[in-house]
């Protein structure tokens, strides 16, 4: 006599996959990481380096650094909160660049898989908001004249531009 098997998917745990890389990011890898037969939707975000203008001229690239052990713990906590809010989420994957990123290249790729699109799309927005508010990564814009300035996310509670979602502030040079 066989025992009753649990409902399909009940014993499957969602994966949270994070990677910091000094190399070009692969969107395909991130999408593959969240793929699941039970999911009808993969919600995807790619953050790219803009060619902004400032008095120092054009942005030629970004330099990223991170407090790596704490990136892991903050992303894990963020995913815990997302899963508590949207229990149907399947898998979550974030790949973030470190080091030098040229204009036009991807600095972050994030994806969420879910049975239906609404949960995934909303969770993805929260994932990005949480990433910008709490995950210890910093970027420095480098200009044509080789000057550079550290950027600040408005989402970060201790940024001077906190609350002003259209603004980013440069702090000193």
């Amino acid at each position, binding site marked *: 006599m066989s025992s009753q098997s649990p409902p399909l998917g009940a014993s499957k745990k969602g994966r949270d996959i994070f990677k910091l890389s000094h190399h070009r990011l692969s969107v395909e890898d991130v999408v593959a990481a969240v793929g699941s037969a039970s999911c009808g939707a993969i919600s995807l975000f790619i953050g790219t380096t803009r060619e902004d203008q400032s008095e120092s001229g054009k942005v030629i690239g970004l330099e990223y*650094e991170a407090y790596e052990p*704490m990136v892991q713990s903050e992303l894990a906590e963020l995913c815990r909160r997302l899963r508590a809010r949207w229990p149907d989420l399947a898998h979550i994957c974030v790949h973030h660049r470190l080091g030098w990123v040229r204009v036009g290249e991807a600095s972050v790729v994030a994806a969420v898989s879910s049975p239906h699109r609404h949960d995934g799309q909303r969770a993805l927005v929260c994932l990005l908001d949480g*990433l*910008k508010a709490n995950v*210890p990564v*910093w970027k420095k814009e480098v200009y044509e004249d080789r000057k550079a300035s*550290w950027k600040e996310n408005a989402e970060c509670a*201790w940024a001077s531009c906190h609350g002003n979602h259209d603004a980013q502030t440069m*702090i000193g040079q």
Partner: protein
Amino acid sequence: MVCVLYFAKSAELSGVREELLQVDTPINSQDLWTRLLGLRVLQGHVVLAVRHQYVAIDDQEALTLRDGDEVAVVPPLSGG
């Protein structure tokens, strides 16, 4: 002895990436802040991270630091 890690703007201001600091504990985060190298321009726009938890810099925040603890200086974030 704790290890202080400096990131981003704070590393440029202090000139170092990390330093060892002898501290008595408990110590409040405000007093710890005064021991850190040359970071006045960040005042009001910086937090610390102790054992991977963010800590505000004020005199209410009493920290019990253990030997070997890591304390990070965390300027405003700009990931994502």
